[in-house]
Structure formats: structure tokens, C-alpha cells
């Protein structure tokens, strides 16, 4: 059986993963941009936070917003380059950027090179270090805050405009929506979410390695989001929890885990293209009917 402490660790990881997914949901789910390099921005946040606290001695509370800003800035500059690109060009450009950012980090000795950075201090409140099981409380609080902002955003004018752009960017443009600017805003906010998630991650594990921001991680994020369902709030939440608990669910078949993962991805797209709780999926419609019926 899973011990309670381990369960709390998994909850922390779910929250961290949810924050990245919420960011990805803004870019991919709401605005409909094929963004396949999200792990790079998670990594930028994590590395920024690690360097700021370990080398420059800042506290977590200062490093956390700064790492969000850093990820957002790099995301915006990437978006600035890429936004002229059409669908699949953007997909490949973001894959390329993911590899380039990972490559630069693993070749820079000041950033720990291929060995990564270890010994990142945990956050502190009044000289008390938040570690292990208590960290899940911190992660949950921050995560709920970000979830709240995400829901508010999706009902805001910008959120509606994003959905319009995802539906048809030409029509959105005709209706007076500044498509390029709103896409950039989506990328900036989405990457800030990823940076926040990276910062939370590195202060929890105390360690970050270039492999944590590889393309495989980006794919895991996209897969979790597509599984849960794009363009809703419930979708990423389900996706994050499932992606975190997935290795546990398939512990009995640990030898074949990747094989199962790959086959599940194909089956998922084939039979549940909208995701379990995505906009327009059957499960979501059923749940809504049940809730309204009562």
C-alpha cells in the first residue's frame, strides 16, 4: 500500500504538474496554438529559482515571482519570433526551442552543465523550513490560487477572445480582436504558470537536471492535457492527477510502462479526441446532466 507520506508527495507533484498544465491550457487549450515545448519554460523557472536562492541567497518568496517573470520573458521573446508561423511550423519551432534551451543549459557550466543543480534550499517561514509532507500544503495553496486566477481569466474578456481565436483567427480578427497581441498575452501568462511550477518543483526536490526540461516532459504535459481535455479547467486538473498517479497505477506492469503509455496515447486520441473532461466530450455532457438533474 501507499504510505500517507508518499501520498502527500504525490499530491505535491500533482499540484506542481497542474500549474504547468494550466499554463499550457491557456496557450494550447484556449488559444489553440500547438505549443510542444512547454517543459523548457518549466525548466527556465526551475533554474532561475535554483540559481537565485543558491548562488545569490534570495529567499523562495523573492525567487518565486522572479522565476515566473523570467519564464514569461523568455516565452514572450519566443512568441515574438514564432507568432508569424502557421500551425505546424509553430509546433516544430517550439520543439526546436525546447531542444535548444535544454542544450544551452546542459552545455553551460555556470548552470550546472549536464550534472544539474543540487542542494536547492527549501522555502522558509519564520526560520522554519517547509519540507516533505508540509510542502504539499504550500503547493496546494499556491496551486489553488493559480487555479482561481485561471478560472477568472477564462471568463474574462481576454479568455473569450482566446477562445474566439482558437475557433477561427480570421473571424476573430474581423471582430476587432488583436490576434497577435492576445496570442502573445496567452504565451506570456502560460509561460509564467510554467515558471511558477518549475520554481515550486525545484524547491521541493532540491534538484534540477536538464532531463527535467526535455522534449519527453513536454510531450508528457501535452498528453496529460489532451487526456484530461483541452480548453476547460477540469481537464488539466484531471490530467495532472492522472499523469502523477499513472506510474503508480501501472506499477504491476513496470517493465512495460512505456509501451502501455505509448499505446494509451494512441487509443486516447482515437477514442477520446476531446479528452475525458474536455469541451464537447461525452463524459462531460453526462456529468453536467447528472449535476443539473439533481
Amino acid at each position, binding site marked *: 500500500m501507499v504510505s500517507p507520506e508518499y501520498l502527500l508527495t504525490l499530491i505535491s507533484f500533482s499540484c506542481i504538474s497542474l500549474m504547468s498544465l494550466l499554463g499550457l491550457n491557456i496557450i*494550447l487549450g484556449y488559444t489553440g496554438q*500547438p505549443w*510542444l515545448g512547454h517543459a523548457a519554460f518549466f525548466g527556465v523557472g526551475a533554474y532561475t529559482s535554483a540559481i537565485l536562492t543558491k548562488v545569490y541567497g534570495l529567499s523562495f518568496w523573492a525567487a518565486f515571482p522572479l522565476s515566473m517573470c523570467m519564464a514569461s520573458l523568455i516565452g514572450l521573446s519566443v512568441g515574438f*519570433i*514564432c507568432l*508569424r*508561423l*502557421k*500551425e*505546424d*511550423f509553430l*509546433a*516544430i*519551432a517550439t*520543439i*526546436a*526551442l525546447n*531542444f*535548444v534551451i535544454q*542544450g544551452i543549459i546542459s*552545455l553551460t557550466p555556470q548552470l550546472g552543465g549536464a550534472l544539474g543543480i543540487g542542494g536547492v534550499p527549501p522555502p522558509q517561514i519564520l526560520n522554519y523550513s517547509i519540507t516533505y509532507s508540509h510542502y504539499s500544503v504550500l503547493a496546494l495553496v499556491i496551486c489553488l490560487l493559480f487555479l482561481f486566477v485561471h478560472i477568472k481569466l477564462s471568463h474574462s474578456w481576454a479568455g473569450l477572445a482566446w477562445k474566439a481565436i482558437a475557433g477561427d483567427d480570421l473571424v476573430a480578427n474581423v471582430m476587432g480582436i488583436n490576434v497577435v497581441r492576445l496570442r502573445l498575452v496567452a504565451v506570456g501568462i502560460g509561460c509564467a504558470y510554467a515558471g511558477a511550477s518549475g520554481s515550486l518543483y525545484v524547491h521541493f526536490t532540491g534538484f534540477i537536471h536538464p532531463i527535467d526540461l526535455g522534449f519527453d516532459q513536454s*510531450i508528457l504535459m*501535452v*498528453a496529460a492535457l*489532451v487526456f484530461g481535455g483541452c480548453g476547460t479547467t477540469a481537464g488539466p486538473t484531471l490530467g495532472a492527477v492522472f499523469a502523477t498517479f499513472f506510474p503508480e497505477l501501472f506499477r504491476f506492469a513496470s*517493465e*512495460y510502462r*512505456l*509501451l502501455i*503509455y*505509448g*499505446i*494509451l*496515447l*494512441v487509443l*486516447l*486520441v*482515437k477514442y477520446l*479526441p476531446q479528452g475525458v473532461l474536455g469541451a464537447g466530450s461525452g463524459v462531460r455532457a453526462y456529468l453536467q446532466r447528472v449535476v443539473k438533474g439533481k
Partner: protein
Amino acid sequence: MLQYLINGLVLSSFYILIAVGLTLIYGVMKILHIAHGAVYAVGAYVSLETFLLTHDVILSLIVGSCVGCLASLAIQGVVYERLLATGASRVSVVVASIGIYIAMKDAFRLLFGPYTLSYPMLIANLFGKIELFTTIFTVYQASVILSVISVILGLWFFLNKTKEGLALKATAQDAEMSSAVGINVRRVRVVTSLICGLLAGYAGSVVGMYYNTIERSMGDLAINQGLAIIVLGGMGSVLGAVVASLILGMAETVTVALIPQPIPPYLISFPLLILILVLRPTGLLKGRS
């Protein structure tokens, strides 16, 4: 100097074999065919196993290409055909393709073991060497380059002079209109994945023999470079893919010669790609087929 040219040409030939298939699939089906990397690895593994059984290089190349072709047809028939019919979004099709890639990569581990495999002898040196203007290159290198040139010529003939090829080009331009004028689009898709599978299987076999290392993640590099090439060349353009492969193969050979520190090949192709995308968002050569 000439030595670099030969090495660059061989590398470019490998890239051409991979990228042409990717760009054709993209042109006809509008799918980023990530699983292409796994088809390539299938070619490498199968030709190695065939060689271990028969000790015949030509036969193992043929078997490797054919099994690659079968793998490609299976992926197209079982997965892509269904996805195109349901009208799944672009991103989810990419996710499915990556899913196939991950599953096949893990299947290689289960079938052939987790270790890097190699041939019992260096196949690349088996057929002797040619000396030309103080440059030494192997017959194997020369035959790789020649075979790729004939592939390009054959493909050009197929695309421009045969009915099937013209149907393929028409489908790449507009699938709906093509089916309206009586082209069997489904058949075109099968033909496309057949050609792409053959090329990828052949590429895998040839590369496995050339570098004498066959591992399950060998498709990673192929697909990275392939994606960079098809964007550089303008998505869906065969000529563009060939030109971009030549540029990238040469750039990589020169960079490796100039920089003493070893850097991964994708750190040459991807920055180049981003640079080109900034300057020319539609790729080097715009157009199709």
C-alpha cells in the same frame, strides 16, 4: 577538404532518405509523422538480424527496407486512416504519432534487449576503398551517395511522369478537390506511406551499417533532424527537403570539423532552423512537391 565534402554528402544522403518521407507524409496527410523515427529504427534492427542470419549485405538491405515499409503501412492503415476519418485536431494527431513512437521504442527494448547492438564486422569497410585526388573514401560511401541520387531521380520521375505521382501531388495540394475529380485519395495515402516506409527502412539499414551502432533511441536524432529539414525546406516540398538536407549535412560536417568540443547534432540544426524561421517564415523554398 574533399574528404569533408564526401563525409558531408554521405550525411546529407541519410538526411535526404529520412526527410523526403517525412515531407511527403506531411504533404499528403498533413501529419507530423514522428513515428517515422521508429520505422527507421525497425529498418536498422531488421537488417542487422537478417545479416546475422544470412551474411548477405544486399539481402539485409532489401529485407530491412521491406519490413520498414510494412511498419509504415501498418501505422498508416491502423492509426492514421482512422484519425483522419474522425477529424481529430492537429495536436492530438501529433500526440498519437508520438505515442506510436514511444510504444515502438519500448517494443525494441523488449524484443532486442536494452543494449546497443552492432554488426560482427565493419560493413562500411567491407567493399574496399577508392583513392581519388589524395582522398580516400570507401566503396560503401560511394554506393550510398549513388543510391540516394538514384532515389531522388526515381522520385522525380514518379512524381512528374506517372499517373500515381501526379495524383499524389494533386492530393498534397487539395485532398478534397482531388477526390472530387476522381482520384482515390485513400490509395494515394497508401502509396505515400509505402514509399516513405521503404525510404525510412532503407535509411535505417544503411545508417546502422555505416555507424555500426543500432540502438532503440536512434530514431530520436533522425526525427529531430528530419523535422528541422522539412521546415527548412518548406513543409511538403520534396525539392526543398533535398536542398535543406544538403545544407544541413554540410553545415554539420563543417561544424564538427571546426569545433573541438563535441556538440549534439540537434544543436546545429535547431538554431539554424530558428534563424531561418525568423528570416523566412515559410522555409527556404516555398511550394509543394
